[in-house]
């Protein structure tokens, strides 16, 4: 009896293993490494939405896999290697903290293509991509300054990394283009994800007179607070109108899908190259949710601003950009700040009334 069972088990295993290999043989396998759970409604969720779009578009030619909740420390390198070792030919690592591990693994697997989000280290088989989220922030600044009655905006910030800093600055520059005396109150919650704390911060900002809330954290908690308090807010990562039907002015939507489809097609066609992609509103990697809950003139202005950024007539970080002390920042890009200055932004612009967090 026992032997019979063992033989049966072995046979089933062998069968399973061959079935597994066969399905893998002819399709291109595309792997994703996610920082959070797929249901975080924020950063990871939007990558997952994009993966699903990819499957929908190229489902008959590819097979996708994701690993979620991958820690940025010791685990990430192994997770990437596991994808590489199981026949994945294109691997997207979707958080900044995966940069060094991705570089290391890319070196070990020169035939596999890697794409790392929001980093800056590249290799012949490792490209990078990110969105120009600050473009959307600039529009939000314009809208916010128009909509605010108190002249004070509230900003819930996660961690002082350049992307968050450039978001604050772009918001301020946009807002100042409408109201030079606009004020912003900033709370650093030191987390990407703690709905309760995000709500607490939103309440604190509202209590101190902010009547338009911005957030650079993941959950819709702040949006709900705005809805309850009857003030305005902007969605983050995805369209959060459901959580603030009377409050959401617009949202910055991370739209990775078209890029994932494009790069996967390139691998399928054998034309993939390692590139540094940094796309914004124009290429639709950053998309604005519908402009809602605002009067027509504000809506028009918002649309005009968006069109201006797309056609290049409006440049958010156009020189001279004044630092917090009122002195102009060195203008490395000729007429505007260059990519390095924006990607590595470590100063506040004039008018931000907060001590710079990480000097």
């Amino acid at each position: 009896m026992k032997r019979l069972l063992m033989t049966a088990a072995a046979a089933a295993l062998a069968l399973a293993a061959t079935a597994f290999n066969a399905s893998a043989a002819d399709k291109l396998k595309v792997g994703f490494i996610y920082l959070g759970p797929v249901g975080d409604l924020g950063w990871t969720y939007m990558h997952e939405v994009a993966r699903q779009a990819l499957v929908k578009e190229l489902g008959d030619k590819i097979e996708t896999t994701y690993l979620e909740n991958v820690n940025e420390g010791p685990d990430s390198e192994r997770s990437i290697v596991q994808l590489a070792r199981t026949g994945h030919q294109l691997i997207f690592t979707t958080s900044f903290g995966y940069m060094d591990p991705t570089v290391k693994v890319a070196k070990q697997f020169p035939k596999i293509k890697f794409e790392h989000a929001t980093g800056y280290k590249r290799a012949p088989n490792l490209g990078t991509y990110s969105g120009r989220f600050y473009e959307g922030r600039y529009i939000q600044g314009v809208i916010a300054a128009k909509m605010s009655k108190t002249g004070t905006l509230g900003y819930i910030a996660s961690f002082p990394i350049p992307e968050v800093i450039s978001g604050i600055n772009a918001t301020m520059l946009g807002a100042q283009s409408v109201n030079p005396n606009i004020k912003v109150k900033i709370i650093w919650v030191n987390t990407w994800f703690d709905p309760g704390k995000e709500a607490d911060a939103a309440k604190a900002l509202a209590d101190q007179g902010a009547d338009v809330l911005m957030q650079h954290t993941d959950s819709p908690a702040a949006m709900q607070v705005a809805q309850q308090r009857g003030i305005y807010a902007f969605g983050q990562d995805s369209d959060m109108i459901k959580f603030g039907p009377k409050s959401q002015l617009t949202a910055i939507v991370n739209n990775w899908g078209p890029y994932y489809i494009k790069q996967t097609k390139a691998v399928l066609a054998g034309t993939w190259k390692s590139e540094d992609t940094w796309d914004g509103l124009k290429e639709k990697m950053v998309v604005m949710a519908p402009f809602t809950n605002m009067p027509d003139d504000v809506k028009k202005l918002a649309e005009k601003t968006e069109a201006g950024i797309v056609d290049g007539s409006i440049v958010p970080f156009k020189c001279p950009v004044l630092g917090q002390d009122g002195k102009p920042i060195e203008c490395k890009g000729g007429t505007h700040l260059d990519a390095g200055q924006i990607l590595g932004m470590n100063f506040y612009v004039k008018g931000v009334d907060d001590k710079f967090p990480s000097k």
Partner: protein
Amino acid sequence: MPLVLEKRAERSAFIAIASPVLAIALTLVTMSILLLALGKNPLMALYVYFVEPLTDPYSLMEIAVKASPLVMIAIGLSLCYLANVWNIGAEGQFIMGAVTGSYLAVVTNGSDVGHWLVIVMLIMGAIGGALWALIPAICRVRFGANEILTSLMLVYVADLIMDYLVRGPWRDPKGLNFPTTASFDPSATVPVILDGGRLHAGVIVTLAVVAVAAVMLGRTIKGFEIRVVGAAPRAARFAGFKSDRLVIFTFLISGALSGLAGIIEVAGPVGVLQPGISPGYGFTAIIVAFLGRLNPIGILIAGLFLALTFIGGEGAQISMKIPLDLTKVFQGVLLFYVLACDSLILYRIRLIGAQSKTA
């Protein structure tokens, strides 16, 4: 209650071996039912979870890499728990060890000073962890403040200290202001001992720690003292053992080992100091300590076993698209069964009929 436990007069060798086997069998049955309900092939899933990682060298090395910090921390914690000292802040001591050890790597970055550097770093890491653990120890001995609270709260503080450093003073000057130190120089890195993977010298250190702990607990006066103070505090007082000194001693040792584990992770598999260096090792190690019955060899086995379930869970996500949450459920169930079957070693279960109403 129809079930009644009865203490065994002597430990049965048969049960000691049969218990883990029974636990695994029960888990397999439970998992199979769940997997069938989800429409997955249970045999293949079980193969992916528990067998596949053992069949190739890379995964075997990764199991060792993953188990190493867990075992090292758990050894220190076991001393605490044996002495009835409730250190549950190993996570914080791990982080502070990583931070203090990294200091040298940060200041010497770029000036290849020689291989003695990493050894000094490890020593500093151990000291850093020990000093951080000294705070709750002193709070308890000097002020009578319960160490469960103090050690746990200091985890959050340690995390924020590291956060402050890598976003501010220790930030990689060439890193575009991202929150990470520069990658450690080779001289500040724990060397890899086998090609083709990440198996590093820290694993040997862990094995040495296991050996020393086994000898110390079994053969020395100190080990005897720890066990006596934990098991029979009053008797210990008569024997002249000072419980205050033991609190400090066990905290220092477990802090040092946690700190050492921290700096080895950072100088080994991770290679930089950055947020997220620990996927909760300090908390998982508590389970490892008890799963290993607070015995060094048991801890070694428990650590390897838990590491296997992590690696296997990752494999299941890749090859069978089994969600990570389901892997966590399996881990929880497995731990329950292992703990429950463990009880059989000490107790026998007797069914008693309804007629004898004793419970």
